[in-house]
């Protein structure tokens, strides 16, 4: 069965697996896939499924429907295509990529609009924070001694030592466990101390370019990276 993976700024909101022949996409709650944000029309588009094919049809929406970054009015979807509507992306797969969980009676996953609203609200407040702080920001999420830290240096050190810029807690953490560096127009985090003590989005890293919203863990301390210029 085909699957649509709905993402908001690279974060998966929901996976939609449906037996319906037609899924409507739009801002209002009567749509099958609700994308609750400005930039999305009330009845923005629809996806129609035939025996072997799926077609996306734009309902003359104000801001348009894009497939693989090309504006379309009607387009046959191929496996792995990305439909972009406002800040949302819908990835189309001909087959469900993992076992269905939590599907509704008709096989349609219930879209968690509450989660969507939380994500959108957080996005708005994060935008205000980076605007106020004037650049990249670390948000203190857990075991930190600040709520917001402006990353205005070329190199920001994180670790257990007193002299580092960002203090982290944790067992067997190095004095300077990691550094966040500005490289051209990118920001990257590099683990300097003991292996396995720096994680980005749960993965152990040696070096990782940071994206907006990334969760950084150094020992027991948790930070969220907010990109200043998006």
């Amino acid at each position, binding site marked *: 069965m085909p699957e649509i993976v709905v993402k908001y700024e690279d974060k998966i909101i929901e996976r939609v697996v449906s037996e319906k022949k037609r899924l409507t996409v739009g801002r209002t709650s009567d749509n099958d896939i609700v994308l609750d944000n400005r930039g999305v029309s009330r009845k923005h588009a629809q996806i129609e499924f035939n025996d072997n094919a799926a077609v996306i049809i734009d309902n003359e929406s104000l801001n348009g429907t894009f497939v693989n970054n090309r504006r379309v009015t009607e387009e046959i979807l191929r496996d792995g295509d990305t439909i972009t509507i406002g800040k949302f992306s819908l990835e189309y797969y001909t087959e469900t990529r993992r076992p269905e969980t939590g599907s509704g009676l008709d096989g349609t996953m219930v879209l968690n609009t509450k989660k969507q609203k939380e994500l959108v609200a957080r996005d708005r407040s994060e935008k205000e924070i980076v605007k106020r702080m004037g650049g990249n920001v670390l948000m203190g999420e857990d075991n930190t001694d600040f709520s917001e830290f402006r990353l205005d240096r070329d*190199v920001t050190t994180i670790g257990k*030592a007193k*002299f580092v810029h960002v203090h982290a807690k944790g067992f067997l953490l*190095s*004095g*300077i466990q990691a550094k966040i*560096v500005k490289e051209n127009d990118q920001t990257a985090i*590099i683990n*300097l*101390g003991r292996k396995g003590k720096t994680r980005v989005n749960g993965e152990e890293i040696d070096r990782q370019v940071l994206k907006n919203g990334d969760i950084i863990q150094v020992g027991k301390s948790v930070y969220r990276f907010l990109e200043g210029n998006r």
Partner: protein
Amino acid sequence: MKIALVSDIHANLEALQSVLKDIAKEGAETVHFLGDAVGYGCSPNECVALLKKMCDIRLLGNHDYAAMGLEATTSFNQVAQTSMEWTLANLSRKTVSLLADFEMQASFEDYHLVHASPDYPEDWNYILNQEQAAEQFEHFKEKVCFVGHSHLPMIFSVDGDGQVESAVKSELAFEENKKYIVNVGSVGQPRDNDARACYVILDTVEKCLRYRRVEYDITAVQKKMRQAMLPDFLVERIAVGR
């Protein structure tokens, strides 16, 4: 108790090994390191590993800091920059993780340790004259502050009236109402016209210190440095101690 204070090894393994032998011979049980394990020389990984094994307190110097990519080398002179590029290319991941646990400053009993200056350790300011020393005494509460960084063994003192003096001596007994800043000199790249490795033995019971000068196989180090394609100026200066 005798404590050896070593600084500015600058990746000179042969000098460090000779000094460690001399320390054992002198009967010092403890060794503390005041920073700049790497830079200039050709054995950074070996030196950091040996310092980690032998020293109780291990401090960061500006070259160690730069070698971890924590600071631009724009403040370095041309030769130092060239050697830092070599160091960055040859430093192992393991060495970086060892340096990540070195400290910026430390203290024990009535003694303070920092690589450059106690006021702002990360600014790497030099203490070269009485005027510069005079500004530093209020930034440590202990009686003596040991530093490295300039590679010039010398002693600054201040008395109860605020009178600051400087001296180059081979030994010193601490006086009651004075505070001191003691530069312990450099093991790996002395710059006081004496090519022998320099370090200090502190006697915490007798309340005195003495400088030690140790000969090592400079020719062997120079050969290795040339093979590593390090700048001639750096190869030549260790033989003349400048």
